[in-house]
């Protein structure tokens, strides 16, 4: 299992290490650096690097490498998933997870890592349990602790650890009982030159923020549950009930969590909310792109932005945008156009000239445009929550559901 963990920043500085078994010298990271030299971008780091005695399993997140070492056979996903969970927990505790934050909170991080893993095997990874064991830092508490002599470390076992609902702590109390559900759908699509959809699918999530006292037992029903044929569930959801009745029944964790994530695959028809009309020719040095909404059920398309990685031979762009702003980074050669809202009466357009660098050869391929957008109050798949019921508690909670459609990996091949 996981032997040691090293956290390395992009400049190759091993600034934190933790060992669960015998100490492994950090020189083992040299193999990692060697591998790192071979790749052009940090995302291309192979997840597993074999060295003579160890295996280095790496994730790259928030511009940091988390390198776990193991000596024996282990399911790589097991370690990868755990490392991601570690980062999730850090983000949950400190708001974000970067080098400065980690350096600032060495002690809490060490305590957390110690609690999360025992002898390399995960022990407690539920944030609710961890938060009971080790209180997240906050200024008020720090002051209170110095005055009262209390500590951030609990000396009783969190009740959740023993119950069969480890994700919820007991004795939750709120003055205002609220439950918010965000149905977020991301559209992944590839649209080819002629505007026909090569491939489109939806990745959806229901993220919750639940602040309910006691032990509420919630039931969520959908108008059209058949849409969800492939989903992953938070462990709190009663699987059989979903399987038989297509009803999500669960005792929720306290706070923020992801209830389900679902996947509407490329086999079903997916609405394409946005289209591009484009003309690009490097020979003539011309670019003309118009963005327009399509199949948005009358909702406004917001926060639209386009990202066009230009070929290396492009020296500069001289464009005029009818709306929003554009920037061209001559180093990374990325043209970025921030469109904002789309006004249906006057579709946003950008056109102008592209100049190629002197002596650069002709450009053989057109770039791919990545589009970002947000559509509020709409779930592009048509998923709709029909009702939310609460059992087990007497009060009446405030309930809210929000729908958002976003662009995932939404690409146009020009």
């Amino acid at each position, binding site marked *: 299992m996981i032997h040691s963990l090293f956290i390395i920043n992009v400049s190759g500085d091993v600034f934190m290490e933790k060992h669960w078994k015998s100490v492994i010298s950090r020189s083992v990271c040299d193999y990692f650096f060697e591998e790192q030299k071979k790749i052009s971008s940090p995302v291309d780091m192979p997840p597993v690097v074999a060295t003579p005695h160890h295996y280095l399993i790496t994730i790259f997140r928030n511009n940091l490498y988390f390198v776990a070492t193991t000596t024996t056979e282990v399911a790589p996903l097991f370690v990868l998933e755990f490392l991601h969970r570690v980062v999730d927990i850090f983000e949950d505790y400190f708001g974000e997870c970067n080098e400065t934050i980690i350096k600032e909170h060495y002690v809490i991080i060490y305590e957390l890592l110690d609690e999360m893993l025992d002898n390399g095997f995960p022990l407690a990874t539920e944030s609710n349990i961890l938060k009971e064991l080790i209180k997240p830092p906050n200024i008020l508490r720090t002051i209170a602790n110095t005055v009262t002599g209390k500590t951030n470390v609990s000396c009783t076992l969190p009740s959740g650890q023993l119950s069969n609902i480890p994700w919820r702590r007991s004795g939750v109390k709120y003055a205002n009982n609220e439950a918010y559900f965000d149905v977020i759908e991301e559209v992944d699509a590839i649209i080819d030159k002629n505007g026909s959809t090569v491939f489109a699918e939806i990745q959806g999530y229901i993220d919750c923020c639940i602040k309910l006292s006691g032990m509420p037992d919630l039931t969520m029903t959908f108008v059209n549950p058949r849409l969800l044929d*492939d989903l992953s569930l938070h462990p709190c959801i009663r699987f059989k009930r979903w399987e038989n009745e297509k009803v999500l029944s669960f005792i929720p964790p306290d706070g923020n969590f992801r209830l389900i994530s679902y996947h509407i695959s490329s086999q079903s028809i997916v609405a394409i909310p946005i289209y591009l009309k484009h003309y690009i020719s490097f020979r003539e040095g011309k670019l003309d792109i118009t963005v327009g909404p399509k199949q948005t059920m009358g909702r406004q398309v917001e926060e639209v932005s386009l990202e066009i990685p230009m070929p290396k031979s492009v020296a500069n762009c001289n464009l005029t945008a009818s709306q929003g702003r554009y920037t061209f980074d001559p180093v990374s050669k990325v043209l970025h156009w921030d469109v904002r809202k789309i006004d249906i009466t006057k579709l946003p357009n950008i056109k102008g000239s592209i100049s190629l660098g002197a002596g650069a050869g002709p450009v053989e391929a057109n770039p791919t445009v990545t589009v970002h957008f947000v559509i509020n109050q709409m779930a592009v798949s048509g998923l709709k929550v029909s009702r939310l019921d609460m059992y087990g508690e007497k009060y009446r909670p405030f309930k809210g559901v929000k729908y958002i459609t976003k662009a995932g990996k939404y690409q146009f091949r020009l």
Partner: protein
Amino acid sequence: MAKGRSSFEFSESDYLDVPLNSVMDLQRIEKESGLPFNNDSLCVAYFRHDDLKQMLDSNRDNLKLEAMKRIIGMVAKGRDASELFPAVVKNVVSKNAEVKKLVYVYLVRYAEEQQDCALLSISTFQRALKDPNQLIRASALRVLSSIRVPMIVPIVMLAIRDASADMSPYVRKTAAHAIPKLYSLDPDQKEELVMVLDKLLSDRTTLVVGSAVMAFDEVCPERIDLIHKNYKKLCALLMDVDEWGQVMILNMLTRYARTQFVNPDLGDLTIDGEERPFYDDEEHENGDDGEEKDEKGSSEDDNEDGQKKKKLAGKKKGKEEEPSKHKAEMDPDHRLLLKNARPLLQSRNSAVVMAVVQLYYHVAPRPEVNIVVKALIRLLRSHTEVQAVVLSSIAAMSTSRQSLFEPYMKSFFVRSSDPTQIKLLKLEILTNIANETNIPLREFQTYISSQDKLFVAATITSIGRCASNIKQVAESCLNGLVSLLSHRDPAVVGGAVVVAKTLLQTQRSGSKPVIVQLAKMVDRVTVPPARAAILWLLGEYCERLPHLPPDVLRKMAKTFSDEEDIVKLQIINLAAKLQVTNPGQTTLLCQYILNLAKYDQSYDIRDRARFIRHLLFPENPETSKLSKYARKILLSSKPAPILQSKFKDRDFQVGSLSHFLNTRATGYQDLPPYPEVAPDPSVRYVEPPPSTVNAHEPIDFGFDSTHGKKSKKKQSKKLSFYSESEESQKSEGTGSESSSSSGGSTNNSSGDSESGTEDSESDSAESNKTDKSEQTGNSDDENTNEVLPSGKLKKNAPTVSSGKSKSQQATDRKVVRYKKKPNKSDTEEEETNSSSSSSDATKGSSSSDSERSYKKKSKNKNNKATKHKDASNVDLLLDMSRDSKATVDELTPPGLMGSLSGEIMNLTLSPSPQFGGSGTSTFGQIQTASAMFIPTKKTELINKISSGGVQVSYRYTRSPHLFSPLMTSIEIIIENTGKVPLKNVRIGQTMLPNGMSINEFQPLDMLDAEMGATAILGINFNDTTQGAKMDMHWETETGARKQTVTFNPKIGELIRPVTMSESLFMAEQGENSSSLGPSLLKAKLRGMNEHEGKAFVNKTLVSTTTTTPRHSLLVHRVYETVNVLQVPSVEDHLVRFAGQSLSSQTLVLVTIHLPEKDGTALVEDEDIPVAARIVVNCDKIVIGSMLAQELKEALK
């Protein structure tokens, strides 16, 4: 933290005026420790040591804490803090939890280096191991086992053994974690550790099981025999284990299944299932004529796929209609594993999903593997690293099972924003699953224009592979490649040429124009491998193109000296081949080239030239034998290279590290091949825990053994049936039943060790007699009496269990005979039961009513039964049904149902101690009791107005249900207020949430107008208050109707009363429930959760009047709400109740604290309510909290 930082800054500034000579020290340290002397913080770290020691020695906790925090900071940065060890270790006794924790962290890090000092801390841990706080015990064990000091091995061993028997599951979990630690420290302890592990593996807590399996995997993966008896439990608990444990269990069970079950694809599936790898092997062996073979192979592949799809479709249909033949062949345990693993595909943890995928891939029958695909595709939206691992697994799976992923092809389309490693993997998969119908050539074309050169090159190779694998598209692929030849990028052109060459090699016909075109390009192509490829092609096909090659050779001769080595070699080759085929035009050229090569810098080329010269231009043509064969040597037909996925033949377990790296990782265990013959499956059948059988031990043996002898076969069939139902219900009750019957089947003199020899003797005697009695029609009861002389054995003993277990095979003829018998005998028990309960002073009138009617009825029946005793069996059967109808009409008391068999069952079961449950009865004298109050309140289910005259209502009978004690029995009262008779009133489709089960009432054939009937329905609510939804059907003359009804149980009805002593109650709840502190502690220790509520109790409820004893009204009110039993108590202000939940049999303890004032003094102001505190202790948080709420309401 803010404070921490400020003090940090302060101390740093403090060090600014440190005298210079310390810097000398620093350099000395640097030399000794070998640490780099690179930044100022190290200076600070070093200088601070003295200061840190001082802080650690101080008396103030916050100074210590500050010091420890800084030390941990150093440890985290990887700086050496070992010299502080003695100073730190002293603080292991600190009272401050955080200081202690940090000391632990430090200790674990450095103990190995400072063994002697570390020993100083051991006694502290030994003390902490006995601490009443489970967290402290657990962390002490954790640290103790993490200190890698060989000297303490015996201490750790002892600690592990103790902890493995700890009552806190959390400590037991820690013990499981400690096992591999100790094993790696001292492998000699293995034997003893395995013993502990065996115990932990049989733990029933989900918390422990996952860790136990992890330890098993690390310490003794070869001891598969330890798993046998836990197999079913592991399968059943799989859903509830934490996600990391799930991964471990699934991986372990995959290996287990490979050793214990036969290949599920054997049999009818062999033809299309197993032959593919076989063909592949053949291909490798007979590589000589690979071309035809390859084509044949691929076309066969296609056929196979088609067949498989058809088969698959057929299978699916078959599954729904009837269990298909092949399914029946599978070991039910094998099926169980697959069934229970399947829901985990929906896990949010990719590792769990992958574990299920590999389980299915390696162990499931081939047609069932496709259910995992969707989940795998879903994982592709995860983080890059996860994607990479998943994609490489898919790549490997798709080499052997293309059809699995075909429908999802689009999900593997490459986005320009993907990282290169992902792009390459996706491309690999696309190539693997491409066939003539779905080949994504357009996509490939787009990829070629990508800016990622590595990816472009891979794409070209992929196109080549597609072309060679799919005959139908070979032509268009080749054309595509040719069009690439005019690409601007030389790398692309080069790649295309190489692939085109390979392609041309695999298909011999119709390539001439392509070769011509290639030859013409020789001037433009600059990439050496591509030039070499063109030259090789020309040489190979020079006979078909008589004019071109010599010309090309001429050009090459000019540029020979400027070429790369690889090209030079091919020039020599081309020259040699032309010399053989076309000597007239090329002899001079050839000699010229050989001369050039003779003086080349590379010895490879000089060697080649020398060899060719001697082959073609021998100095003495007569004697040179080799030159005669020059043509054969140079122009022999060469096998085409096989283009195949590099993921083919990865034999490692999918999703493992070895699989990802494609090399054997340390500690990787091969998946064993399926055994030819399955090992004995009976090893997995477990004996019931002794506690369940204890009480009714004499009951169990009789029937089993009688029938065990007569019909062994039947028993074994029943066995599998039971084991299935056990899993599906997860009910301990049926579990114990099935296992006891299994005991009977394997061992005639009953599986229970408790049953003495005397018993077994009487068994055989009895079985003889019963046989006889069957023939002669003698009275059974007499027989039994004779045969069981032992006074201890109740004469009704064998009959009770017979009635019980037999009723489940309702159609058996003998059943009737046995069913009759208990009538008389059981009334005795019932009598004692009811008399004991009636002796209680406060008793609901209805309850005594029902009891009386029970008695009446059973006696009634009893008489009749004796009357009919001489009649033949068939007659008896008829009589019985007649009887039942008659009695139902006569008296329909509450709590009885319309069918006789059921009613008798009810009677037979109620005294059975089985309800004591395995879970709780171990604690001692906890026995289930009958309800103290039976509610008469009916709840309306179907209104007569909405349903046209059918009024259905229900109420809780609070008596154990006959089918399973885990069920709440609900009496359904059906009244026909209409004018037409109802027919066939029954339950239709049920929609039950997870874990619930139902026992339907027997359909009512007929219900006349203005008549009523009752029926008993049993629902196992699985300790939740979720509604059970079902359809009720009935028919009238006008047609059939149905209505959906929902039973929403009250939490109080999901509990049954138990008797227990006050001392036991307090032991369960905590030492002294009046003082909250320790009670909480102890209760928490046991894992019981406490819920509190305050209620203002109406004065009247607690006041004492002359007629009723104190609190009786309050008690009654509690009884009305919750089905519990008062625990006799001496304390006046406390009222205690005990019960246990029906389904999981967890204890529910209710305590009501009343103010310690005398009730009578306050009688005057009755309006002022009394504040009472309600405390509910229950393992199940939901039950506890709901119950507390419920009681609060009830007592208002």
